[in-house]
């Protein structure tokens, strides 16, 4: 029997989230190695058109799980819909992007069958009949080759950017079926009152061509303003920050880059005194060119950077501002 790889699709405002396409890319890798089949699952009140799109992008079969209660995400609604499907199709693997939604919901599903989730994976190796997923424990100081030795279904979530979706087909021609799922409305225990924006959205880093950001490593709010501010001005750049900076209230949340802030895609991104925690890095992977300046040459940010300078930001930035002005004068 061919192995089934189930991808649970996440969508927002009628669009498939990029992470779900990356999960699809990972699923294709497994399916191709095993001669298996990729099955997508889209839960919504109206899921068919999203399911069709997912089928075009590479799923062999997509199940539109429809119910009025699925109009918006609730963990119990998704859990019921997906658990039912898993029971029906008995997949070998269940994959999702490692998003807040997946973390909020997928372990509820896996716990029912006594399975943990191989979470936040950055790669996969096929070892005969089993998949070995690569994780980054200890804040990405190590890479761990990890397996789930229990019976199927197995569960994994995939780190943003780890499985590029660039090579997915445009017209795969997978099939779509629509299931009217049964949802026990009484079991929807979380009653969502509202989803709201925090702070102002006037700072739209995603539209900026150049972004300069700083980390807690700059020492103080004054230093941050001085160093990040002067370089941003010289480059005509928008200002961003890592989470610790925002937590310390040096800048409003609107400037935060990373998993709990904005994901940016500028031509140039400059990281000053940012160590490069994974929660930050996932927000900058779309940048065309990354410059990192940090005193710690082991800082993980350098793994992401195009160019790096190891040194004291307080010394390098004034020199950089001068060099930019010099170049402009020429």
């Amino acid at each position, binding site marked *: 029997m061919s192995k089934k790889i189930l991808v649970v699709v996440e969508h927002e405002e009628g669009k498939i989230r990029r992470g779900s396409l990356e999960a699809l890319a990972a699923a294709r890798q497994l399916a191709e190695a095993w001669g298996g089949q990729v099955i997508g699952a889209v839960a919504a009140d109206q899921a068919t058109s999203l399911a069709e799109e997912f089928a075009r992008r590479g799923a062999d079969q997509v199940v539109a799980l429809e119910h009025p209660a699925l109009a918006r995400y609730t963990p119990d609604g998704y859990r019921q819909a997906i658990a039912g499907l898993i029971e029906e199709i008995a997949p070998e693997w269940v994959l999702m992007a490692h998003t807040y939604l997946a*973390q909020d919901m997928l372990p509820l599903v896996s716990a029912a069958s006594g399975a943990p989730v191989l979470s936040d994976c950055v790669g996969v190796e096929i070892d005969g009949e089993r998949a070995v997923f690569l994780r980054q424990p200890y804040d990405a100081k190590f890479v761990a080759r990890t397996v789930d030795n229990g019976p199927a279904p197995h569960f994994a979530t995939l780190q943003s950017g780890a499985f590029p979706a660039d090579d997915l087909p445009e017209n795969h021609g997978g099939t779509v079926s629509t299931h009217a799922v049964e949802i026990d409305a009484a079991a929807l225990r979380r009653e969502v009152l509202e989803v709201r924006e925090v702070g102002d959205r006037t700072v739209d880093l995603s539209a900026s061509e150049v972004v300069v950001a700083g980390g807690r490593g700059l020492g103080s709010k004054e230093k941050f303003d001085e160093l990040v501010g002067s370089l941003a001005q010289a480059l005509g750049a928008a200002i961003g920050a890592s989470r610790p900076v925002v937590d310390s209230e040096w800048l409003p949340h*609107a400037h935060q880059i990373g998993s709990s802030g904005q994901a940016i895609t500028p031509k140039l991104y400059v990281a000053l005194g940012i160590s490069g925690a994974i929660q930050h890095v996932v927000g900058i992977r779309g940048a065309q060119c990354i410059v990192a300046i940090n005193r710690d040459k082991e800082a993980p940010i350098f793994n992401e950077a195009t160019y790096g300078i190891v040194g004291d930001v307080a010394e390098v930035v004034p020199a950089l501002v001068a060099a930019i002005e010099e170049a402009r004068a020429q």
Partner: protein
Amino acid sequence: MKILVCIKQVPDKDARLVLDDAGRGIVQADLNWEVNESDRYAVETGLRLKQTLGQGEVVVCTLGPDRARKALNTALAMGADRGIHLSDPDYRGGDPMTVARVLAAVARSEQAELVLCGTRSDDEGYGQTPILLAGLLDRPAVFLTMGVEVQDGSLKVIRELEAGRQEESIVPLPAVLAIQSGIYEVRYTSLKGIMAAKRKKVTQPTPTELGLSSDQIGGTGQRIEVLSMAPPEAGGHCEFIEADKPDVAARELVEKLRREAKVI
């Protein structure tokens, strides 16, 4: 309200971690340990809820060897009322699922109305134990809790979403919440609190006392296996600009950004 807070002891952030001989874990000897960051916020949340309600008990629980007692003591020094140290060797090893099973058994035996956890441990970082736990207990849960209030026997919870958004919802009790770092300012432990912690009760229930059989927990019950662990392959493609003086380095960088990368 009885609140159970689950915490984990992890190596401190600046620790220099070394792979063990088997290459499947880290050398634990000579490390400094601390309470996992988001777990501290969970303790703080528990203490504030009790304070606001004006009644209740905050029981703090950890799974780990003898050294983990210090993590409990830190939470007790912050103000938690009582500790549970899951120190039996049979608990050890394991994966998020086996840990969740043990914690679920504790939550049941304690009849805790609210279970608080951090979101993700800074060591293995599976980030799922609280939600697995909720699944096992068949209770509602919220991951990445950024705010919580008790309202008419339910919880009003704010959940962090991506891209700077938040979801506000009502969740009935009993429930499980995974608390996000930064929800509140965590109190400092005072010397008075530290001294008082020494006199607080800490129990060490065995698996049998919690009604757990050894094949469900610890190394015997685990499904996840780490085959090997290694440092990440050295750097990507970063080109380091190595000049002695900042102004030379700066000029070289600007030149490269203009000519090579063509981004300015």
